[in-house]
């Protein structure tokens, strides 16, 4: 029968020999990767850093050979995951935070904002239309105010309030610096900005409605304050952070429109590719929007509490507006650099 005699020199499998020859370098790569994953890439010495791509290519070559010649499934699976993990550390890792930030501020952000000028103008028109509409509606019939503005957002400032109450809302200094009401306004408006962007995905229609509605809220407040003769004062209260915050909302809406447009009308590209290209423009814009919202939050929470003179408020508002428009549309140093 076939199975009894022990062979003089058992034939050794190719995968066994292959494994013996290469195992040491796989293990070295595995150890390096584990250290990077547990701690960070900075935990590697210069020498190990130089070895990483070499070991990665060796692992890839092992993988190619193993796939063709080795039948040990566990070996192939190990090499696949080892190469994949190494790949992401060699190629897939983002640049260092500082380099990325520098490029973002020097070129990426203003360039992305300039790329969506038509959408920004569209968002501006919608907001202004909404503001006019809201103003007209509440001036015509103050009852509209309650329909337009949620209770939490009004904070006691409604058509029935006396001029003193309205004035107090503009100038009273909160003891804590940041009241619950201010916190609510801040998160509400930041969320409006994010929604404006994200809802652009639904072909931009919800974004348009949201911008219109946001404008109407603004118009409704103006109607209430204008009736009390406080429109000028309201502008100072609103715009000290509003030039930054409303600008951020407009840009977020514009980025949303860009995405909605790319999905609705992809042109010559596949719909999905068009969406990715639009997303690539929207990325820096939204990164910037987040920064602008933080600045707006600081102006609202701190600046508005400290600065109560109308003139100073107007000066800050105009200064911020000039800063943003100048930075986005006039400062073109970044264009000279390579992409």
């Amino acid at each position: 029968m076939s199975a009894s005699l022990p062979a003089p020199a058992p034939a050794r499998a190719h995968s066994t020999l292959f494994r013996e020859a290469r195992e040491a370098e796989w293990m070295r790569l595995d150890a390096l990767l584990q250290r990077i994953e547990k701690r960070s890439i900075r935990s590697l010495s210069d020498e190990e850093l130089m070895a990483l791509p070499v070991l990665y290519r060796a692992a890839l070559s092992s993988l190619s050979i193993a796939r063709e010649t080795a039948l040990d499934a566990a070996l192939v699976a190990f090499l696949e995951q080892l190469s994949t993990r190494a790949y992401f550390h060699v190629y897939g890792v983002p640049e260092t935070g500082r380099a990325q930030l520098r490029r973002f501020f020097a070129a990426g952000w203003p360039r992305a904002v300039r790329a969506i000028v038509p959408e920004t103008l569209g968002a501006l028109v919608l907001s202004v239309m909404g503001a006019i509409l809201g103003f007209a509606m509440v001036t015509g019939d103050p009852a509209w105010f309650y329909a337009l503005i949620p209770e939490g957002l009004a904070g006691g400032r409604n058509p029935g309030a006396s001029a003193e109450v309205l004035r107090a809302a503009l100038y009273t200094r909160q003891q804590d610096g940041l009241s619950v009401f201010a916190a609510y306004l801040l998160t509400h408006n930041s969320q409006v900005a994010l929604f404006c962007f994200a809802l652009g995905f639904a072909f931009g229609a919800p974004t348009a409605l949201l911008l219109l509605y946001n404008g109407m809220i603004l118009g409704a407040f103006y109607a209430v304050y204008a009736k009390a003769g406080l429109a000028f004062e309201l502008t100072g209260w609103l715009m000290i952070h509003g030039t930054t915050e409303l600008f951020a909302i407009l840009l977020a809406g514009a980025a949303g429109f860009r995405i909605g447009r790319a999905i609705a009308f992809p042109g010559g590209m596949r719909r999905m590719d068009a969406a990715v290209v639009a997303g690539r423009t929207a990325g820096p814009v939204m990164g910037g929007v987040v920064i602008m919202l933080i600045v707006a939050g600081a102006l609202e929470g701190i600046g508005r509490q400290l600065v109560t003179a109308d003139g100073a408020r107007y000066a800050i508002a105009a200064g911020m507006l000039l800063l943003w428009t100048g930075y986005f549309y006039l400062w073109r140093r970044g264009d000279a650099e390579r992409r």
Partner: protein
Amino acid sequence: MSLTRPHRHRSRTRDFVTPEGVNLRLRLAGGSERAIAFAIDAAIIVVALITLTILASAVLSGGGGEAAAIIWLIGFFLLRNFWFIGFESGQRGATPGKRLMKLRVVARDGARLTGGAVVVRNAMREIEVFLPLQFLAVEAATSDLDALIGLLGLAWSGLFLFFPLLNRDRMRIGDLLAGTWVVHVPEARLLPDLAATQDAGPRRHFDERALRLYGIYELQTLEKVLRQGREDSISRVAATIRAKAEIPDDGEDDAAFLNDYYAALVAYLESELVMGRPTDTKHGRRTT
């Protein structure tokens, strides 16, 4: 050489060719893995906020209620946005929840993951998760017409939430726009070589007739059986092989027998493979 996968597109494995020209065959993360990862992150965020609230009310005896409200308003907003953006733009490309589930955010084209892409994919979370939540809140809080609107909104925003289940690549809307997807990169250990010579003694010898019974598919199934080490399947497989190869059962250990057979079969099939005569299954070379 692994077997060809006829349903490559239906499965979660995706071709991904490195600049060196090697296909890494990435495995995409499944819907449930991602849901669990998100649940872990959400739990951490909520626990952090609760801790912060307790701390704040301990420090500010008095204005605790107001401080708590501010913490939840601003803290929740900041955390839910920056938690994901911060971790995913780091070196690991994963939040703690994703790391636990061995997931990683990757650019679909294999390029570097940019900060912009991370911001986009996470800004979209607002409509994927928090919009449905808000409609749910409307639904719970009010009645009549508002409830109806809430219900419609919930259905509409639910589309965004379940978008990953509606496409083959399990992409969120955020992934789609940012050009990313989430892959599963497990940390596999190199399992011991079953075919390596053991110190226990010389291996059995099998003649060629016994080795020609099976192909690569059966070999890799045998490898799985051996690695799992379940006694009932080992003895069943050993009995089948003995019967087919007409080897008498001389009362030896089934696992040792299978191990020897495996080692001999690997050596035989691999030498055939290198000579250009691969045997895919027991029926011989598969015609493709």
